[in-house]
């Protein structure tokens, strides 16, 4: 098992190069919108979340629980059916996916990290189960997890991550490996983040706009999903009540002579119509899942914005720190006290310090200033780097979002057309029966 496979390809060194898509690639995108471009990783392997299974075990508080695990299967790309799997084909549960994602979030803060499928079933319409162990929910989650892995594998930066590759291939030891990276220490504390958000003075305008956009997108999609669930409920009701026609026509046909046959067959068509709504709504869930993915993507966008704010804030703090130290130096050298300071006060009260004392203080301050200047330079550099890299990322994300959501809307429209055709068919059949009455 070649652990360094992911980063051995030097062609992908220009990490963030967002080249325009060439014609065959764009065609590829039409077919499979999820794989934006072929990374080195995906050129070598196919990723598949093949199965799910229920397991039972003791959890961290020593309680018995039932949970679902998912099988990750890696096969060589372009191999014939039955190519030998690469790696251990590990079984992973949802919480392990979460751990992986958190690791990626911390390690690559400038990347818009793909989201996981929802933790709990939300925006359900009444007939849909909200139970995490429900087979339909598990199945949709399986697809969502596979989608997540493929997205990570298609990302030019993320695909090279060793921990990610280990996640795909190593059953044992992955957890230890990821914890060993110490990513949890690198994680910015919530408090720090929040404080930065509130106190940063000059966030970059593009990031402020991005934050606002992601809030708007989040709000729009949540609203849409909520209303869609209600629409689904109502549509279900309309279709199901038509089933009553089936019953009444059947009963009525029993007391009629010439009208009987026509009524009876029409009744069957009404039953068919009523039953058709189940398939229609099941298909629509797929559309809802696509929307949900982008809803969760807004969290990733906000995460990037927050990181920018944090770095910017740290830069601002460093600049302020440098300025205050320079100020102090000025005071020491000129003796002028422009700003109230305890030192100044105490020297007034208790007498001036000796020149030797002042000299040593100046020297210390000078060193401190030097360090501060370096810190500012570093922070500035970090800030600029982050902005550059993350902005490339955001551009890539935006293009992906526009393309994929457009596709999703087209599929949705096609679903509606199919639903209408079914409706026309059933009522035309019923009409024929009525004509024979």
């Amino acid at each position: 098992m070649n652990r360094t496979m992911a980063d051995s390809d030097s062609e992908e060194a220009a990490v963030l190069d967002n080249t325009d898509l060439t014609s065959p690639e764009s065609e590829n995108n039409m077919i499979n919108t999820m794989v934006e471009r072929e990374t080195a990783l995906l050129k070598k392997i196919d990723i598949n979340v093949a199965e799910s299974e229920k397991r039972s075990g003791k959890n961290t508080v020593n309680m018995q629980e039932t949970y679902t695990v998912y099988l990750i299967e890696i096969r060589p790309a372009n191999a014939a059916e039955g190519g030998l799997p690469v790696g251990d084909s590990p079984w992973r549960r949802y919480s392990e996916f979460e751990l992986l994602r958190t690791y990626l979030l911390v390690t690559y803060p400038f990347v818009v990290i793909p989201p996981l499928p929802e933790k709990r079933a939300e925006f359900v319409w009444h007939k849909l189960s909200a139970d995490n162990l429900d087979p339909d929910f598990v199945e949709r989650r399986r697809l969502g997890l596979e989608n997540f892995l493929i997205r990570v594998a298609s990302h030019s930066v993320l695909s090279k991550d060793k921990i990610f590759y280990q996640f795909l291939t190593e059953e044992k030891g992955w957890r230890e490996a990821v914890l060993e990276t110490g990513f949890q220490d690198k994680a910015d504390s919530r408090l720090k983040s929040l404080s930065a958000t509130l106190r940063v003075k000059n966030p970059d305008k593009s990031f402020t706009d991005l934050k606002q956009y992601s809030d708007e997108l989040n709000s729009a999609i949540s609203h849409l999903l909520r209303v869609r669930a209600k629409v689904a409920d109502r549509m279900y009701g309309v279709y199901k009540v038509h089933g009553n026609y089936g019953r009444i026509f059947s009963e009525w046909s029993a007391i009629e002579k010439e009208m009987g046959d026509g009524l009876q067959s029409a009744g069957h068509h009404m039953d068919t119509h009523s039953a058709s709504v189940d398939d229609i709504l099941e298909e629509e869930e797929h559309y809802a899942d696509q929307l949900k993915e982008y809803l969760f993507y807004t969290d990733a966008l906000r995460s990037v914005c927050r990181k920018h704010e944090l770095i910017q804030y740290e830069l601002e703090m460093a600049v302020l720190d440098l300025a205050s130290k320079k100020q102090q130096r000025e005071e020491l050298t000129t003796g002028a006290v422009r700003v109230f300071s305890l030192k100044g006060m105490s020297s007034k009260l208790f007498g001036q310090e000796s020149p030797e004392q002042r000299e040593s203080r100046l020297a210390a301050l000078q060193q401190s200033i030097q360090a501060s200047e370096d810190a500012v330079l570093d922070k500035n550099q970090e800030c600029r780097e982050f902005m550059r890299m993350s902005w490339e990322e955001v551009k890539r994300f935006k293009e992906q979002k526009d393309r994929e959501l457009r596709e999703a809307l087209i599929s949705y429209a096609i679903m509606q057309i199919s639903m209408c055709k079914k409706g026309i068919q059933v009522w035309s059949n019923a009409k024929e029966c009525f004509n024979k009455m």
Partner: protein
Amino acid sequence: MIVGAPRGLQPVNGTTHPLSAVQETLSPVPDVTASCHIPNSSSSSSGGGGGDKEVVLTNGKPIETSSPASASSLLNRLQLDDDLEADTLDLYASTETRDLFVTVDDPKKHVSTMETYITYRVSTKTSRIEFDLPEYNLRRRYQDFDWLRMKLEDSQPTHLIPPLPEKFVMKGVVDRFSEEFVETRMKALDKFLKRVADHPVLSFNPHLNAFLTAKDLNKRQGLALLTKVGESVKQAAGGYKLRARPPEYCVMGEYLDTFNQKLGTMDRIAQRILKEQTEYLVELREYGSVYAGWAGSEDALTRPLEGVAGCVSTCCGAMEDLSEGMSQELLPVLREYVLYIESMKNVLKKRDQSQAEYEGRLEAAVIRKQEEKTPVPVEVEKCQDRVECFNADLKADWERWQSNKRQDFRQLLTSMADKNINYFEKCQSAWESLVSQLQDDQAENTNETNCD
């Protein structure tokens, strides 16, 4: 009404054809060429209900032809087959040429100091001798229709009178002057009048004539033109109990009860569907507006999102049309037939009473005959005639009603199917044009990318 020989039927063997006797009594009508086709169905049974094809009474006596009621009802029985093959576009045309056309339209509101009410224009076109002019146009209000129906019921108790739309509406619940209400009521009044005009016996009723022609319906005094049959049936005393109802009328009664029940269920289902559709519509409208709102914060996705919002909006409109159509067409007909059933049950009851009276009198007469050696009084014979008349009229009307019912429901349900098809077609077309528009946009974008 043409009184030529019936077409498409087997000639009746044996007894004198009653129609030949009838020919003299009814006024001759100009011989208008029949423009209809001759039914080629060889089954002379009008299907269902065992239509009697005997042209004589069960006791072998020829039917009295002096009463227009019985003669026309015979005619009616013999020409029933035609209805089945009738042009489905015009429910009320029998294949013989009609010479009486009535229409109810043009509702207008009248405001007076005492009350506000609606009148409708009643237009008549006819070539019948009973009418002085070939055309009439006057205005009538619901009260007048109600009067007419009451008079018809009184004067033709052996016949099934078509129902009127509901008389009373709950003030505050239904707006009596709303366009929808007036429209629905007017259509029902039109149907009522057409059915009466189409009925071989009722259409000759003098009260109908008055309704269609008189400037001022003198409702209080009424017209003293009750027929013999009407009078005699009116005099039928209560208190006679029916011994045994012939099975055919039991069957009718059972059918009516069951059918009534089914209609009630259908009405409830239809209303439930309308309710669900309305609630669906509410959510759908919000759904469309969310897409429109989202479009505002996008740029590349603005067109697709607005497109979807537009389609959803179109679907809302289509659903509105569907619901309106259903509520205006389906529900009134269901209710009309419930009223029809009530009417028919009344007729059955009256028939029972008539039979009961006859049997009662007969029994009394027989006893007296045994005791006093007197012959059976004419009174009893008249009763017998009445019963037999009644039975004949009722059976004829039953057949007619069954046939009309079949046509009405065939048309109604077909129309309901059409409306639903129309709804889906509108939606499909909206989504299809969106898909092609979006796919064109996509192709454009790809080309641009390729050219870079």
